[in-house]
């Protein structure tokens, strides 16, 4: 089997996931948060496909495809929410959206 082993892919996947999670936690713009979320999902996809290739079965690929579909749907909903928020002339800052404070 040519190319690097599964460990390299997993290391990349962890780096991507950490980047995404870090982005979600520290960025304030909802657009960037959404973007970071997509990176996390794709980190997962990468790990799935790496394993699929290692075992030679298609299961992981199917999972990755499903995740992409869900990610697309999630992006639609998320962007829709952001548009709706900006239409109400609220500043686009996740720290300002604290109506649900207990």
């Amino acid at each position, binding site marked *: 089997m040519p190319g690097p082993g599964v460990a390299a892919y997993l290391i990349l996947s962890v780096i991507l996931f950490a980047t995404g*999670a870090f982005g*979600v*936690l*520290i960025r304030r713009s909802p657009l960037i*948060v959404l973007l970071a979320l997509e990176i996390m999902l794709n980190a997962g996809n990468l790990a799935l496909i790496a394993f699929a290739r290692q075992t030679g079965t298609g299961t992981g690929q199917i999972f990755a495809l499903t995740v992409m579909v869900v990610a697309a749907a999630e992006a639609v909903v998320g962007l829709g929410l952001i548009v709706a928020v900006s239409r109400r002339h609220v500043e686009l800052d*996740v*720290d300002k*959206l*604290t*109506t*649900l*404070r*207990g």
Partner: protein
Amino acid sequence: MIAAAWIALFAPAAAVVAIALGGTGITRSVAGFLAAGSALVSFVASVVVFAVLLGENPDERTHSSTLWTWLSAGDLKIGAEIQVDPLSVFMMLVVSGVGFLILAYAVGYMNGDAEERRYHAYKALFVFSMLLLVEAGNLVLLLAGWGMVGLSSYLLINFWHQRATAVAAGKKAFIMNAFGDATFVLAIFLLIQRTGSVEFDAVFRSDVVEHGSTASVLIALGLLGGAVAKSAQVPLHTWLPDAMEGPTPVSALIHAATMVTAGVYLIARTNVLFELAPDIQDLAGILGGVTILLAGLIALVQTDIKRVIAYSTMSQIGYMFVAVGLGAYGSGLFHLMTHAFFKALLFMAAGIVIHALSDEQDIRRMGGLGRAMPFTYRVFVVGALSLAAIPPFSGFFSKDSILGAAANAGTLGWILWTAGAIGAFLTALYTFRLLFIVFWGEMTPFAREHLHLKRFEGGLAMAWPVAILAVLSFFGGWLQVPWGWDLVNEWIDPVAQSAAEATGATLVFSVLASLALAVAGIWLAWRWYGRPSDVPERTRRRLPWAARTLERKFYFDEAYDLAFYEPASRKAIFLTQYVEQPLFLASLGELGSSVRAASRRLSSLQTGYVREYAFALAAGVAVLAIVFILVT
């Protein structure tokens, strides 16, 4: 013929439904006529049934008919079943006949009351319940009628629900009757356990219950408990006088003519079971004897016109209990019938007086009404003479039939005869005291001020049923004449064979003695109340304790208060104060406030920052991952 019996049963029920569904769509008088008309239909149907039975062989006069299986539990099947036999037809005629006259009277009496329709519906419901009671073909259906009679009497007693006393009286009647219902139910349970059936012929024919065994005693005792409560006998009698809070036709219908006699019917109906337990049957007679005396004595000092008649009802039902307790079923039922006539008559005449005096019931404010109300006075005299058992009025024949039978029934018979004879004296005394105070002498200022009369005194609508009852009170007793004929006994005998008959030399003695006592009672009433006299006042002053005991009705209410109400209410107050207040109410408040405080603290976790939620999630996943790694 059976169809006629079903019609008799369901006509009043149809009237109830019609009045209830009609609502304000029908006028008040239409509601009244519907109720009275349904009773008339029942009466006509009963007459048809009676005529058919009359044409049959005396031993083949029992018919029953089942519409459907009403209840079934395992092997036990209870049908919606009626039984027509001489006893039930006798009761049907009394209930629907007298019931019709009273319902017709009520149309006039209640005219103008705010909730007249409801009243007529209740009355028709009562007639239906009573007919169900007497026509039922098994004990459970009888019990259903029994309970519905209690319900409709409750509804009618507190018909004027804006009066606190009426509501209290209704509750009292209901609770006391419920006590009797409970013992009745227990008796039925025991019967089902022993015989596996509730059908009359199966229960009465079965030899599973031995003569004199504990089971037979318990069954008879349970039935007697029901009968005593429903018929207002000592010691469950205190509800009846209070029940006079209801409208007067109610008093006439329920508390004189029909409902209170249901106990007598029950004992006559289940006479086989009572004969299996002779001690309990004796007890029924003894309770009757005690009631005759107690009620007669209390009636001497009552000042409410309806209460005097109510106590006299209790006392007269005491006679019927004596009769059925001694096994003289025919005599007891005969007195039941004549009593229904003359007692309904007395109540309805009293109702006319009460109406004419703007709802005043205190006899001390009446007087001299005889001249102002000649018709009412005359019918009242007929009722009073009949009640006092003066020949040839109906009460004479029926009461002396009972006393004559008692005189032929051994030692206990003679004891009860003595009670009955003293009762005859008391009856004459209190009845004529009432008559003289209300109708004789000078009119009181109150009466002069408030008396207002229509044509025919209470109005024709109220006058004609009273007139018919007066005629019946006069002639009703001639069904059974000593040394003449014995129609009632012969009619009842196939169902309830009389063990004691009024015959022989003892009857002569009995008739003469009781007649002498009754005349003495009337004479004494005349001496004390028929003309200005200070004897009652002086007696009261000389024997203050006796007067007080009678006015307090032998302290029965006080005793029940002390024995049941006081402990219960004290216990409840104690529990409220020392258990409910500190333990439950206080702890509930504490619980609520502490939950609120805890949730206020918890809610501060919810900051509203999406970032923090995400971090919590990520941290949680990280912790889980570390745990997994460490564990595996």
